[in-house]
């Protein structure tokens, strides 16, 4: 397969923040897991940085608009950009919203060089792009270098007001990369920060230093990661972009006898093809890392897109990509043809079943089962818990859809054991039954009066009886009240409540008493049971 070494990266800086912002000049930050992951240029002027804690960002810029991370919003907004670029460059690869990669060999030759090509793309984009997103184009021999170049181009064109692509000379990529700081690896190449910090402490400040150590030394110290580090810093590409036709066995076509208008039917057939595809590759011990999905409509219109996952595309990932592509493609007539082309296939090393740790057979079957369940029930009904932090029982863990299980597996799972408890959280042990919607109850003192709490958090009397529905319980012992005041500065989201632990005995005619412990909450002068120590 003939591969083109040279590639271009088109980068829209801080895409998710720009999309989420209310107006083009307002400061806005997208927050995920209490950390800023993206912010608008307006927020940047206040000093808000990526990776900052949310509270810190709010301290720097009180007017900042905080928005939750929502990948779907970014994706759908990015479709206009994809469509525009696609009109000029037929085969593009979308790694994530805000980032497009394509081989420059064809387009540059057609448009008369790298620079005219970049200018032409930017010209076309100016009409479609969301206002105020900084766009940069970088051309180099590796993804990392092109990414850095694109970032530099975006920043420079913002400063001068005039767009200029950043071109790294052919075959000079490794020289160009050498003086860059190792931090670019975490910014542009998904190497985690701890590794970068370790490299810096080792005195390796530039990519040249890393490169000079030699691959075998790095591999000896860091294992696979070391090889990756060396590859990145010398400017080599792991999976080159391909510009010629694939061999026939990497091709899967389905023609519909009658044009299909129902999207679900198309998705189903993609699913069938995708599972056949991945099965074929797994039999051969390989995995597909890049795929081209092409749809053809009845009247000959085509939608073709390239999808890339360095860890390998699973069948569900292919279907997900196809869905994204279909939703974005506005076509009036029915579809006549679906085509899957495995563009890049490599030996399956990353998903090798390991004897000690790593992915095991059970993990594999469980992941498959999760996929099947999500299909059956919808992805919102299959969830896993992720630590998020908070005082409330419901806040401390967030339930996320389990289809992201692969990304979570790769995240450090032992982190959660080291997470400290929040101040003001309930003492352990925690209740095993927690209600999403607390149940209203009555808590009375010995005179049958409803219990109240003074402004100084003192109970009006000892609790004696708890009435849930029609049943009453005798209070044996209790602890509290523990006040919780959250966000007192914010009138809309502030909370004031008091917690009480109660051990109750059911008043029954039988001689065996039934003892249960519960957590009662007084908020807005109403008692509720939030949890039971079941």
């Amino acid at each position, binding site marked *: 397969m003939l591969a083109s070494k040279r590639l271009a990266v088109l980068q829209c800086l801080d895409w998710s923040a720009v999309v989420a912002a209310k107006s083009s000049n307002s400061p806005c930050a997208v927050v995920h897991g209490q950390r800023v992951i993206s912010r608008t240029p307006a927020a940047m002027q206040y000093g808000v940085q990526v990776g900052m804690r949310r509270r810190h960002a709010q301290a720097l810029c009180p007017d900042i608009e905080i928005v939750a991370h929502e990948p779907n919003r970014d994706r759908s907004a990015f479709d206009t950009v994809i469509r525009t670029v696609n009109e000029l460059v037929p085969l593009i690869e979308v790694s994530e919203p805000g980032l497009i990669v394509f081989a420059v060999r064809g387009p540059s030759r057609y448009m008369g060089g790298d620079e005219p090509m970049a200018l032409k793309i930017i010209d076309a984009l100016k009409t479609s792009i969301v206002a105020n997103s900084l766009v940069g184009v970088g051309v180099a021999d590796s993804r990392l270098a092109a990414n850095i170049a694109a970032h530099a181009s975006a920043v420079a064109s913002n400063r001068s007001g005039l767009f200029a692509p950043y071109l790294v000379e052919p075959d000079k990529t490794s020289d160009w990369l050498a003086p860059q700081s190792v931090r670019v690896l975490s910014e542009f190449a998904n190497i985690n920060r701890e590794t970068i910090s370790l490299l810096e402490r080792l005195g390796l400040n530039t990519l040249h230093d890393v490169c000079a150590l030699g691959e075998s030394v790095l591999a000896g110290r860091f294992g696979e990661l070391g090889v990756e580090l060396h590859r990145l810093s010398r400017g080599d590409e792991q999976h080159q972009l391909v510009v010629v036709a694939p061999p026939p066995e990497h091709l899967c076509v389905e023609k519909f006898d009658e044009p299909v208008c129902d999207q679900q039917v198309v998705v189903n057939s993609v699913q069938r093809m995708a599972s056949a595809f991945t099965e074929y590759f797994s039999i051969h011990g390989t995995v597909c890392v890049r795929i081209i999905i092409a749809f053809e409509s009845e009247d000959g219109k085509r939608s073709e897109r390239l999808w890339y996952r360095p860890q390998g595309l699973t069948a569900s990932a292919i279907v997900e990509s196809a869905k994204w592509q279909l939703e974005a493609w506005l076509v009036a007539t029915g579809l006549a043809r679906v085509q899957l082309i495995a563009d890049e296939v490599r030996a399956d090393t990353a998903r090798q079943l390991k004897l000690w740790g790593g992915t095991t057979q*059970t993990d594999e079957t469980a992941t498959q*089962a999760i996929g099947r369940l999500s299909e059956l029930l919808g992805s919102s009904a299959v969830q896993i818990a992720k630590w998020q932090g908070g005082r409330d029982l419901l806040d401390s863990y967030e339930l996320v859809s389990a289809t992201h299980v692969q990304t979570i597996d790769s995240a450090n799972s032992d982190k959660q054991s080291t997470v400290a408890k929040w101040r003001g959280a309930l003492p352990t042990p925690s209740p095993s039954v927690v209600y999403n919607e607390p149940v209203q109850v009555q808590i009375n003192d010995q005179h049958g009066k409803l219990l109240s709490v003074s402004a100084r958090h003192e109970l009006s009397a000892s609790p004696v009886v708890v009435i849930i529905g029609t049943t009453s319980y005798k209070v044996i012992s209790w602890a509290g009240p523990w006040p919780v005041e959250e966000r007192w500065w914010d009138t809309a989201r502030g909370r004031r409540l008091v917690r009480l632990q109660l051990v109750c005995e059911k008043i029954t005619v039988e001689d065996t008493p039934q003892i249960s412990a519960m957590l009662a909450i007084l908020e807005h002068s109403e008692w509720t049971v939030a949890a039971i120590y079941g």
Partner: protein
Amino acid sequence: MQLLAPERLVVADDVCKLLPDSGLVRGRIIRCSGDAGLSLALSLCSRATQQGSWLGVVGVAHLGVLAAVEHGVSLERMVLVQPPNTSREWSVTVSAVIDGFDLLVVAVPARLSANDARRVQTRLQSRRAVMIIVDNMALSRSTSRFSAEREPDPFVADVILDTKTKSWSGIDNGSGYLQHRDVSIRVSGRRVARQREHLVTRRF
């Protein structure tokens, strides 16, 4: 793979003596009922999830995740599934969970037909998974869960662990906080030769 898999899943030492085979034998159903049922179920699961088994929690919408963590359940292998409530669809969902997971904690819906229950049980035995049934602790204004006597679900449990809290300690009128409790656990079921009763002091 089937042959290599151990016949039973390991459980933590403190709950080991409750079970007749000192472990969760694959293909069996265990019922944890009573007021400490859910936390007992979680502590039964903890060791197995730490050693790589996946846990599917089906239909237990009110599970306190924090409690699961404190019991030692490893969260990256715990999946919460919200099944539909009709009998047939529920059994299809549970069968799908059984296909992929070693361990299940399920709350059985009110109207499950005996046929569907048998189908699930057969699947469980052929896939060598372990199912732990817990009470549905849904609490509503009209029917308090402490009072409502539900009709028994159609599953025939191999081991029944009926829990009953005797007392809580660490809490006094207005001071302290809930720390330990004494639970009496009655062990019965068709795989248990003689009914026994244990009195256990637990942190949960």
